[in-house]
């Protein structure tokens, strides 16, 4: 009997899952269908560089279909909803796709309209985001004209994709204005809902120190209630105000809209609850979740998706064979943090272990928690790695799903939040 696997989404998660599944199964045994809402696959880590003129649209966008291996059916259509009871995906226009196994990999969606005033007066004029391509391109033009005044970078609330990206934006802005000789005429303020620069204590300290060093003012526990683009100020729910001349806002995130239209599938933010180790959806055993779409206590980031991918495919194989699931994802994540002036830091962590100093992936490797040129080169090289290794679903010797401890000054963090 031929099994039907339907993969919703063709970003990092959907693409690598479909390709790994295709490599694992014979075409006669498993039919794989991928559904995507458009054919533009954006290399999202590249968005950070666009506002500073360091990357351009043509460098970071490719065809989604072009990243999928032969033998994968590709459907380009918006999704209306998933009918969990009938094991059917209904597309816009009424076409139905039946599945034996469903993979939800439709990522996170920006919902700027949920914040009062954010998309009103001043949106894309003095209030921007770099979290989508259109916004990043518009911001490039605005930054090029900006040579004095108050730049404010605001994270409205968690969860967001790549929680370090707004910090990287501050570091790069410091470098960018320095290069243009106007750094002394610009103030940079980082306004966050968190109680520090970052979520994990040790990294928060290091990154907070870097903000200081680069003269970026830090405003914490600021829960943005309103963005007033006309008056040029952020207003928090508890009545505090931060004035700006140019605001770069990371809007609220939610899951894909069809999740909300699929009874029983998602949570109140349209993310999909699943077991944090097996990635099996809580809604039904034949539904698995990958990447930003999942409600798991891990960062919404490509590295998480990459490491989850191996486990996901193992567990789908167990499920189809009628075996208990044993693939176990440990929350492993890592990311290069661009710090400006051609340097970067690297952090590596999982559900239990917060980021610590040392080296990755082993004793000899890239330095962790410390700025270096090699990490910056690593970050730049990663784009090649993304298109040619991560998306095709190739395994890399020495890089595994489970977090390595060999090169680390390890200690288990006591209840890291």
């Amino acid at each position, binding site marked *: 009997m031929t099994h039907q696997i339907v993969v919703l989404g063709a970003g990092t998660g959907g693409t690598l899952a479909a390709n790994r599944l295709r490599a694992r199964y014979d075409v006669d045994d498993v039919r794989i269908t991928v559904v995507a809402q458009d054919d533009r696959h954006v290399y999202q880590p590249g968005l950070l560089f666009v506002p500073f003129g360091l990357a351009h649209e043509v460098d970071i966008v490719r065809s989604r279909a072009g990243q999928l291996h032969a033998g994968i059916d590709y459907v380009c259509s918006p999704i209306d909803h998933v009918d969990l009871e009938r094991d059917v995906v209904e597309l816009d226009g009424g076409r139905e796709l039946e599945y034996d196994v469903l993979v939800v990999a439709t990522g996170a969606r920006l919902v700027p309209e949920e914040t009062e005033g954010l998309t009103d007066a001043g949106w894309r004029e003095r209030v921007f985001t770099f979290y989508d391509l259109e916004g990043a391109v518009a911001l490039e033009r605005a930054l090029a004209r900006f040579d004095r005044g108050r730049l404010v970078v605001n994270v409205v609330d*968690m*969860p967001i994709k790549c929680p370090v990206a707004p910090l990287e934006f501050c570091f790069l802005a410091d470098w960018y204005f320095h290069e243009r000789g106007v750094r002394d005429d610009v103030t940079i303020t980082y306004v966050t809902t*968190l109680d520090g620069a970052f*979520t994990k204590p040790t990294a928060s300290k290091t990154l907070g120190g870097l903000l200081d060093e680069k003269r970026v003012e830090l405003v914490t*526990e600021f829960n943005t*209630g309103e963005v007033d683009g006309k008056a040029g100020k952020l207003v928090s*729910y508890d009545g505090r105000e931060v004035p700006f001349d140019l605001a770069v806002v990371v809007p609220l995130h939610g899951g894909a809209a069809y999740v909300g239209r699929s009874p029983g599938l998602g949570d*109140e933010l349209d993310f999909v609850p699943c077991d944090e180790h097996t990635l099996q959806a809580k809604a039904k055993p034949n539904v698995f979740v990958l990447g930003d779409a999942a409600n798991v206590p891990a960062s919404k980031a490509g590295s998480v998706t990459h490491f989850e991918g191996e486990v996901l495919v193992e567990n789908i194989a167990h499920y189809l064979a009628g075996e208990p699931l044993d693939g176990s994802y440990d929350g492993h994540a890592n990311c290069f943090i661009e710090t400006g002036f051609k340097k970067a830091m690297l952090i590596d962590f999982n559900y239990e272990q917060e980021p610590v100093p040392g080296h990755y992936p082993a004793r000899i490797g890239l330095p962790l928690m410390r700025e270096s040129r090699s990490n910056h080169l690593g970050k730049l090289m990663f784009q090649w790695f993304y298109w040619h290794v991560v998306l095709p679903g190739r395994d890399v010797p020495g890089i595994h799903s489970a977090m390595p401890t060999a090169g680390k000054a390890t200690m288990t963090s006591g*209840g890291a*939040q």
Partner: protein
Amino acid sequence: MTTTTVAGHSVKLNDEGFFLDPDQWSEDMAPEIAQREGIDELTDKHWQVIRFMRREYAETGTGPTVRVLGKTSGVSIKELYELFPKGPAKTAAKIAGIPKPRGCI
């Protein structure tokens, strides 16, 4: 971790004042914890949020974030800040005797 007495009961709190064991909590402790957080009187609206926090914790293993509270508790975010000016998610979690919400990763 510290052990302290609330309304005559001995309870364990973390360094930030959140309950380590939600089973040690009982409703008679809420007014005293609220006073320590600067809330003199718990109104019906406060109790609506506190009970909602308890239910959410029992169901999901973590307290909701402000945003989720605003969407699901029946109390708007603006109103939540009027009720718990120092931050609804954290303050209500403390008063409801549940651990610090882990929403932010």
